């Protein structure tokens, strides 16, 4: 008979083994893509995990990078996602600071309005009209603002909860020193919000980067296309040339995976903390 400790250890090892076997379900699709990105077009047509019969080639990558469209779309994605994150974080934190501290009826209403955005889907057609009226349609700026609007509900929710954990005494001591709200917020409070800002910024960035619907409606000039839209275009155009399509997919996934791996702990912590507390 095994002791409790030994039993636990055995269970732990068993869990690990089974866990990794099951994780193949997750990993195999990605393996397929990576392997096939190095196969010739003929070889990759089958999209399987076999060793490349015509040898490993880099030509797929060379061809899709040629012409610079992928690179340009990378910078577009970077610009739009970063811009969105910057705008969204700053304005939302500002707004939530006031709303959390003041608790007046008006502010409650505004908060529920933000919250509703988590549930309701956005209407792109009419949003496009508004952008046109402001002469912002098809511009980077207009697109960034729209993305920010999409990201505000979630950021609002997270900031609202977190600001609640900052004691009002901090505000009070700063006020006694004679600061106005801008100084109070940017010099004292915002730095304290770093943990949640990092989490929300990462999640918003990933969401903005992966967004397919928004650029589909909002961005028409292919020179402004994001990476995801570019991949979709390549897929439609290169239908059977899986080797090249895989190369494009890999290139699109690399930035997001880097962000994910670096920020993994924050992401998971963020999703769970907000979620579990309801």
């Amino acid at each position: 008979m095994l002791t409790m400790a030994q039993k636990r250890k055995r269970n732990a090892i068993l869990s690990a083994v089974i866990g990794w076997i099951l994780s193949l379900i997750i990993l195999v699709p990605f393996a397929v893509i990576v392997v096939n990105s190095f196969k010739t077009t003929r070889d990759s047509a089958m999209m399987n995990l076999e060793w490349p019969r015509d040898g490993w080639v880099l030509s797929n990558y060379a061809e899709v990078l040629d012409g610079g469209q992928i690179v340009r779309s990378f910078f577009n994605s970077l610009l739009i996602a970063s811009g969105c994150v910057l705008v969204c974080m700053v304005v939302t934190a500002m707004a939530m600071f006031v709303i959390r501290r003041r608790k007046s009826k008006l502010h409650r209403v505004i908060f529920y309005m933000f919250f509703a955005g988590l549930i309701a889907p956005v209407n792109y057609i009419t949003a496009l009209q508004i952008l046109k009226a402001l002469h912002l349609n098809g511009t980077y700026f207009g697109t960034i603002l729209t993305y920010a609007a999409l990201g505000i509900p979630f950021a609002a929710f997270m900031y609202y909860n977190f600001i609640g954990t900052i004691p009002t005494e901090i505000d009070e001591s700063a006020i006694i020193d004679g600061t106005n709200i801008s100084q109070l917020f940017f010099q004292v409070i915002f730095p304290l919000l770093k943990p949640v800002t990092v989490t929300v910024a990462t999640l918003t960035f990933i969401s903005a980067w992966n967004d397919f619907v928004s650029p589909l409606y909002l961005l028409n000039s292919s020179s402004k296309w994001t990476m995801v839209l570019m991949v979709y275009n390549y897929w439609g155009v290169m239908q059977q040339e899986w080797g090249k399509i895989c190369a494009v997919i890999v290139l699109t996934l690399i930035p997001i995976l880097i962000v994910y791996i670096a920020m993994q702990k924050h992401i998971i912590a963020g999703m769970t903390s907000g979620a579990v507390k309801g």
Partner: protein
Amino acid sequence: MKKLFALLLCLSMLLVGAAALAEETQLRAGSTLVVCASQDWIKDYNRKLAEDFTAETGVNIDFQLIPDDQYGNVVKAKLASGDGVDIFFSNPGLGLSEYSPEKYAYDLSGQPWVSEYADWALESITYDGNVVFFAASSLDGWGILYNAELLEQIGMEPATSFEELLAICDALQEIDVTPIFEPGADTWHACVWLLETGDWLNRKYGDMYEKLCDPSGKFEDYPEVITFSEQMMELVERGYFGEEEDWLSQKWNDRAEAMASGEFGMMVCHMSAADQIEELYPEAGVENWPLTIIPLAGNNTFSNSGGSMGMVLNKESDMIPEALAYFEFLARQENLQYVYDESKMPIITFKNVEQDVTYQYETLMASCDNVSGPDYTTRIPFYSADPIGRAYIEMWIGDKTPLEAVQQIDKDRAIMFGVVE
């Protein structure tokens, strides 16, 4: 410091002078013409000519390729947002109507090469009385492409009637060949069957095209259309397409391999697409691939698209001189000849090219006794590939009866006319 300042001043004056000088020349070297197309429409020879043009004028050509089933939506959205489309492709004639031609089609009537158009092409390159298309393409249209070797095996000739077609398909099934290759994964293909009834019905009724130009005109009103659709359905019911889940995953781009493999007896294909099969599998020889009209419901003429996709110049483009120069360049005799020779198209829209018809063209025109006229896409608006194709796919998989499919087509056209019933 003073010396540096003087030097900078001179340099800037030089630059300004150079810029002014550059502006005086007609074409802005280093600028880019944006051409929107779907991936299949730009071939290697088009690209080569574009490169030659750039070498000569310094103006770059940027082919923006859009996936087939999104092409219409994306171009319309780009045009509406005023966003950098200089030239775009469109179905000729009234096929242009979905792109708001009054707003976006530049009038090319005064261009020097217009007089070189062949007579048969004239109708399709005009809209509302003005020449708006540059189309260096062939009379094109769809028919049934047969694998002659397989026909020989069963001892039959291409069908001239629906009953004959059934007989051929039955015989093919007996030798274990799937009679018809239908690329079900490409929804748009399902719309080309009906496309070939246009000329025949218009001749029969005299005013069908006129009626269909108005939302009150409906396909449902024509019993032949219903019969045609029912016969299309019968082909599937008899198992001529093969297993449903198989033909639904077949792609248009697989056609060459599929036909050459001998697994399929025939497919609905357009004239210029047949040559891809020959190119990839030359062993069988050109004459292995006869093309005839689609003999369903008594159809006996060849509906053609009078020159297929053509290029339209966006009125709102700010690269008009460059675009006109591009068209002029493409209209040069040697360039047209090059396109004609490279593409192996049967005939071309321009008179001044030496032409040599293909086998498919011969067999096709023979099967309709040389009676041919324009099809729906050139003469009525909103013969739109995706809604019509989808309606027929729904019919084939049993979600709609033939009548319901035709009614759906009418409904979708009504929506595009702007009428919600």
